[in-house]
């Protein structure tokens, strides 16, 4: 099992460690609810070093990114980040990812830890048509880069103390290369998967410990805390953000998953599955990923069945939890067509009982 640059800190802090995507990762330190609320109200730090980073370089970099991802990367400017996905050529999704435009000939793709190998093989395979070679135009830096996500309403204020440029008014989903705590050329990105605001910082593994200490020192007066994977999951689910492997997969299309907004059918862009997905968009799909909240008391979980008032199967829960902010069960599920509208009553089968829930617009938690 791999360690990150921060594993020793997690163990010293008494985190509950679990294997996740081949990494030894902290699932919680003081408790998921407490950590979750800390991020919503103040700020918290996640070790997200397990995420994968691929560089795409050279004159054909944009053409490649346009071909393999669903969003329109031509609208990116230097310093802009975009949420996107890799369609898999069979109507499903290889992975969801972030695309960073460093400059005309340099892009950074940030992918899910569990999919690094699959994504890398996919990119290398697709890169052949562009004459790309491994280690040159395509470079897998996943084992060299560590990453902290500092998330919450006070995150940028705290980080401002240790960076050399203004960051508090940075636009959402942009990044700067800057000095942080004496570390040169860190990527400081106003991204994250919590819906609480904040940033993600990428540095070389050897600079990790320095970054960790500086971040906690800067955040101390604001009540900063380390946050584990458990709260990462409850935070993203309250926002209705997809988790690969739960809500999206090789067999769900971006259109079904509600990711039409990152699937751009524009003339200047051809991409894998464009034709198929356009057809889906125009003709409609038979199931869609929807957020819901429980009306009856109960906690939905992945793979629980969703039924209508008469008990007919209408879908399956892909993610579910007790919302720490709403104090009720929430989840996401693929539902058949008649049940997509907000406030539609649905029923979740929990231990042979049919418990009432309703479809809600995203985000599930409205702050």
């Amino acid at each position: 099992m791999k360690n990150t640059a921060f594993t020793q800190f997690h163990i010293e802090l008494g985190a509950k460690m679990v294997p996740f995507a081949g990494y030894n990762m902290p699932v919680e330190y003081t408790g998921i609810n407490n950590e979750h609320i800390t991020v919503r109200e103040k700020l918290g730090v996640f070790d997200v070093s397990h995420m994968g980073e691929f560089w795409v370089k050279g004159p054909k970099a944009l053409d490649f990114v346009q071909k393999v991802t669903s969003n329109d990367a031509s609208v990116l400017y230097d310093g802009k980040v975009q949420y996107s996905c890799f369609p898999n050529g069979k109507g499903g999704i290889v992975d969801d990812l972030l695309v960073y435009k460093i400059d005309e000939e340099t892009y950074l793709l940030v992918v899910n830890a569990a999919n690094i190998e699959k994504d890398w093989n996919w990119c290398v395979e697709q890169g052949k048509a562009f004459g790309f070679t491994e280690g040159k135009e395509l470079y897998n830096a996943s084992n060299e880069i560590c990453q902290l996500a500092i998330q919450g309403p006070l995150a940028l204020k705290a980080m401002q103390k240790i960076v050399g440029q203004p960051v508090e008014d940075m636009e959402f989903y942009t990044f700067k290369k800057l000095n942080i705590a004496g570390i040169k050329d860190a990527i400081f990105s106003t991204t994250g998967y919590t819906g609480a605001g904040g940033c993600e910082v990428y540095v070389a593994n050897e600079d990790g410990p320095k970054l960790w200490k500086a971040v906690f020192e800067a955040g101390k007066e604001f009540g900063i805390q380390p946050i584990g994977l458990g709260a990462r999951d409850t935070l993203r689910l309250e926002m209705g953000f997809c988790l690969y492997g739960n809500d999206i997969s090789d067999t769900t299309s971006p259109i079904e998953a509600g990711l039409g907004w990152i699937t751009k059918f524009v003339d200047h862009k051809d991409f894998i599955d464009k034709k198929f997905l356009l057809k889906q968009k125009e003709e409609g799909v038979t199931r869609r990923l929807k957020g819901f909240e429980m009306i009856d008391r109960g906690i939905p979980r992945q793979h629980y069945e969703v039924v209508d008032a008469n008990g007919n199967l209408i879908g399956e829960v892909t993610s579910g939890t007790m919302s720490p902010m709403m104090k009720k069960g929430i989840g996401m599920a693929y539902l058949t067509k008649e049940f997509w509208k907000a406030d539609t009553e649905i029923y979740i089968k929990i231990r042979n009982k049919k418990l009432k829930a309703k479809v809600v617009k995203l985000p599930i938690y409205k702050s």
Partner: protein
Amino acid sequence: MNIPANLKYTKDHEWVRVEGDEAFVGVTDFAQSELGDIVFIEIETVGETLNKEEVFGTIEAVKTVSDMFMPVAGEILAFNEKLEDTPEVINKDPYGEGWIIKLKISNTKELDELLDAKAYEELVNA
């Protein structure tokens, strides 16, 4: 890890506090710590008589769902209703305020099959 000497235990991490032919049952400190934040307790067996090792209820943490099993056969006399709104009491005080059900024991001889504190400690440290 807190494992009071005056209680009996099961290998499924329930504790039992015997009072004559009645008993209070909860989950151990080890169990609450492994589960993490407890967010929901469902007991729908009050008034029923269940066999040893039958499921008497469900305990849900943020990430997981676990069944709870009868340590001995008996009738479920009561459920700790405080847990309906504040299940987190189990995290804070698993052996006291966090008791889950009260039983009428069918056959007190079955108590001999439970683990004592020392045997339970060996189990969780194994």
